[in-house]
Every structure is written in C-alpha cells, then in structure tokens.
C-alpha cells in the first residue's frame, strides 16, 4: 500500500482577482521510503500541493475536492486538532528559506526539541538531550554548544541542518522538502541534499523533494512528477524521465537542462511563453499555448492522464 495517496485533489485560493485554481485534479502517490521529486516551473502548484497535504493553505486557500490518504487515513476529513497531531509527527516539512524559517528569539535547541515535547510528551530536559543527538545526526559541529545558540548565530547551511533535525525529531513517515537548498550556496546545496537523502534512507522516511533543479532529480529521486499549471503532466521513474520523456513539457525542461558551471541565471529551465493564468484556466491542456506539437485536439478539454506503462504516465493527447 502506498504511504500517501492523493486522489483527484483540487485546491483554490480566494484572491481579489477571483478564485485562483492553483492545483487541479491531481493524482499522486508516495511509497514508503521512496523519494519522489516534484518538478515544474514557478507557479506550477508544487508548494500548494505540499501545503495542502499538511492543511496549511491559510485563510484564503481551500481544498475543493479529492482526498489525501496517509496510511489509509483521509487527511481531508481530519479536524484541525487531528491535523495538529499529524504535522511534525507523521509528516514533517522543510521549507525553502532557512534564514527566516527559524524563530529568531528561541534557541535552536528548543526549536528542535519542541516536536518531541508536543507529540511524544517528552520533558524539556529529555527533549533537549534528544535535540543534541539530532544536531549530531545532521553533522552540526559541537552540537551541545549549539543548543543555546540563536538562528542568527548560524550560517544558512547550518540553519537548514537545524530545520532537517527538527523535521526528523519525531521520526516521521514522510518528509516534505520544498526547495530546501535554493537559498544556499552551490557547494552547501550538495551537502544538504546528500545529508537529507542519507537520513531518509537511514530512518526509512519517504521524501517528497520539490525542486527546480533537474540535476538534483537525477541524483536523488526514485520517481518524478512533473507539474504544470496546477496539473501533473507526467510521472515516471527518474531514469525514464531522462531517457524517455513522454510529455512535450518534460522534453522542454530536459532540453533546457542547464550547464551547471554557468551562472545561476542561465541554469533555470526556460521555455518560450508564459504559464497559464490560473484565475482563468484555458479549457484544454494548460501547456497548449506554448507546446511545439500543439494540435486542435489539445484545446478540446483537458487531456486525461494515461498510463503508458504501469509506472510511466502522462497527460497529453499527442501521438508521436
């Protein structure tokens, strides 16, 4: 059985410009212990999907339909109190900005220890002792001395290690990392990702790794889901995405795989055209306006998601 099974999920936000349909009828699953990479350009709905899993969409956001099953429990039906027991315990999340994601006025040891107090009923001294071990696990030098330090005393890489330690505290079944290294130096990025991967393997946690970086995908992911315009365009095992991409959008991403030695601006995948306006989504395939293989069929309704092999699927009506 899948650890996490997302079925036909749609999420929208109330905005001044009307309802923004950020995620539309997506299906996604994560098996125990595997690493699923979610890729796609900015605004494709990756973060919204992650926040929907934890029910952290905020005041303006809402799940319009679908279900999110975690080990058979439908999280969409959960009350806020039930969700609080899931967050940080069964599923934890690591965010993009290590600079601002830690509380500036609380020592890092306490922040790492907090989930244990909250979910395991640990006493603060026990939890702090465990936090020291966690800091050691994420390879922070002098973990004991770091417990009482504040986030501003740590470098960006160290802070992200603290975030990882915090996410691991309650040995979650699933860790969601939303572009965990985008804000870091290139050399630090590699270290942090390697650490994250190593620790998930060690603890048996599954990982949803949201990223822009296809190089990261190749190295760390077991499977890949490609998102565009709030939909899943293609999913496949990581090796197949590279060797045999089946969706024109995925191919576009692949051909724009950057030269890693170039400057950052050149490394972001670029495809001609603008992403769709999610407040007024097009009637057909969201990628049609930018697709080099567009045909009339593309605008006759949203292409259904089809499985080409048991593990490789796409949402495209093209036949070549």
């Amino acid at each position: 059985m899948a650890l996490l099974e997302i079925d036909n999920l749609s999420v929208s936000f109330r905005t001044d410009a009307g309802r923004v349909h950020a995620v539309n009828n997506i299906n996604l699953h994560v098996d125990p212990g595997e690493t699923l990479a979610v890729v796609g350009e900015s605004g494709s709905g990756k973060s919204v999907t992650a926040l929907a899993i934890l029910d952290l969409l905020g005041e303006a956001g809402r799940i319009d339909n679908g279900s999110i099953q975690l080990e058979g429990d439908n999280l969409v039906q959960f009350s806020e109190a039930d969700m609080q027991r899931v967050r940080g315990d069964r599923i934890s999340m690591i965010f993009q900005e290590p600079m601002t994601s830690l509380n500036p006025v609380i020592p890092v040891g306490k922040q790492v220890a907090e989930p244990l107090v909250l979910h395991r009923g640990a006493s603060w001294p026990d939890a702090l002792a465990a936090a020291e071990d966690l800091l050691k696990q994420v390879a922070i030098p002098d973990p004991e001395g770091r417990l009482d330090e504040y986030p501003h005393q740590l470098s960006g890489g160290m802070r992200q290690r603290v975030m990882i330690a915090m996410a691991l505290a309650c040995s979650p079944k699933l860790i969601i990392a939303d572009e965990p290294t985008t804000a870091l130096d290139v050399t630090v990025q590699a270290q942090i990702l390697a650490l994250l991967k190593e620790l998930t393997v060690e603890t048996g946690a599954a990982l949803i790794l949201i990223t822009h970086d296809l190089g990261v995908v190749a190295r760390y992911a077991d499977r890949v889901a490609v998102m565009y315009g709030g939909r899943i365009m293609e999913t496949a095992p990581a090796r197949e995405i590279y060797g045999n991409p089946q969706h024109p959008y995925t191919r576009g991403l692949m051909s724009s795989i950057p030269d890693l030695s170039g400057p950052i601006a050149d490394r972001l995948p670029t495809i001609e055209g603008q992403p769709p306006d999610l407040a007024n989504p097009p009637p057909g395939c969201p990628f049609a306006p930018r697709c080099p293989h567009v045909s009339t069929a593309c605008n006759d309704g949203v292409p259904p998601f089809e499985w080409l092999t048991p593990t490789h699927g796409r949402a495209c009506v093209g036949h070549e």
Partner: protein
Amino acid sequence: MQAYIARRLIALLPTLFFASLIVFVSMRLIPGDVIDLMLAQNDIATSQDRARIESALGLDQPLLSQYVSWVGGVLQGDLGRSLWQNTPVTEQLKASLPITFELGFLALIIALTVAIPIGIYSAMRQDTPGDYIARSFSLLMLAIPSFWLGTLVMVFPSVWWRWSPPLEYVPFFEDPIANLNHMLVPAILLGLSMSAVTMRMTRTMMLEVLRQDYVRTARAKGLSENMMVFRHALRNGLIPVVTLIGLQVPLLIGGAVILEQIFVVPGMGLLLLEAVFQRDYPVISGIFLVVGLGVLLINLLIDLSYGFLDPKVRHQ
C-alpha cells in the same frame, strides 16, 4: 554591559543640559512676570517694593548668571526654592512625584492589560466583527481627549445616580483602598487613552509576525494556534510595542497634568499647573528637569530591555 550603561548615562547629560536651558529661558519669556503677580495681591505697590522683592528673589541678576547659579545648585542636588512658598523645590517634588508615578504606573498597567490581549485577539481574528469592534474602540479612545472623558465622568454619574468619583487624596500607605478608590478613575482614563495606540501597534505587529516563515514552521510542527501565538509569535511581536511604551511616557505625563487637575490629585501635574500660573520659575524648571530625566531613563531602560527580548541585540 556596565560600561555600556555608563556610556549611555553620560550621553544623557548634553540632552538634559539643553532641555534645561530651553525650559529656563522659555519660562521667562512667557508674558507677565512673577513680581507683577505678587504685587497684584498687595495693594501697596511702589517701584521700591518691586526692586526689593526682585533682589530678594535674585531676579534682578542677568539671566545667564541666574541660570549658572541654578545649574550650580542642581549639581549639588539643590533645585532652589519656590518663589511663593519659599519651600525647597526638592521637597515639593518629593511630595508630588510619587503620586504622579503611582497614577502613571496604574495607567500603564491598565493600558497594557487592555491593549495587548485585545491587540492579539484583533490580529488573530483579522477582519471579523470582533476585530472591527476592537479597532473602532481604539479609534474612539484615540479621538476622545481624556479631559473631556474626565469631565463626563465627573458630571453624568452625579446627575444620574448622585455618585461622583471621590476627589480626596489619601496617601497609599495610609489607606490603600481609599487611595486606589481615588486614583482608579483618572488612572483608567489615562490608561484607556494610552491603550488606543498600544492596541493598534500590537495588532499591526502581530499581523506582521503571523505572516512570517517561522510561524508557518511552528504550524508545520503541529502547534495549535494558541500555542503558536504564545510560544512563537508574541515575543517577536511585542519587541516594537515595548519601544512604543517608552515613546508614550511623555504623553502619559501630559495626560496626568490634566487629569490631576480634574480629579484633584496632588501630583506633579497639579504642582506644575499652579507653578505655571504663578510663574514660579524654580518649581517649573525643577519639574521639567525631573520629568526629562525620567523620560530619558525610561527610554534607556527600554533600550536595555531589548537585549533581553531580542537575542540579536544581545550579541552585538
């Protein structure tokens, strides 16, 4: 740390010096002088009388030498004597300062206990009816001058219920209940007017903090909304509010001057008002000096409390 405090204290001296100079000079520029007022109380008023009184009070000296001798006295802890009562100004201050301090302290406590919880509530329930009510209330408190509210409290209850607030001052250590009975109404009025700004500031700051990434992290850990606010958001949100309290101290004193008058509280405000009417220069200068020093010290204390509240400041 001690060296830092000492440096900050020394830095206060120039400020105090200029403030005292301004007060000393400007008091004497107010039209109508103290001798005229004194002579007007007696019928016999000749120019000899005038010269005699003037020299007795030392007012015939040039302004500069008056100032220098006043500063000389201040440095030895002598603020001079009241021109009218001939009592030492320090003694008058000793009697009235604690009373105003009590009034201000009560007002501050009232302001904070009203403003901070409502500000937090308002931020957590942004744009709900509760938030609108709280914001309207604070706008109202901001708009209504406390002397007007004070007058209402004096007039209407006595018309409606034949009750009016007690106007007799009783020292706190003599009879705390009677003392609070008297002080509470002006303290509430003063506190409410101060709470308006504090409440808005608390709300704004909390809204700002609730948008921060670390609040999202706290939620993602599984903290309930209340725990998130009290453990993670509040301390960050209140740091700027503390500064605001420092900035409000002069306003608090200004409000106290008026409310002491209405409710016959024999504090520094009442003393100041009488002194201004009578052009009792040494008393006025003494009060301003003490108030100025107080405001500066309170703000210093607040700067220091930053180190306690904000670890970033502590490590600088």
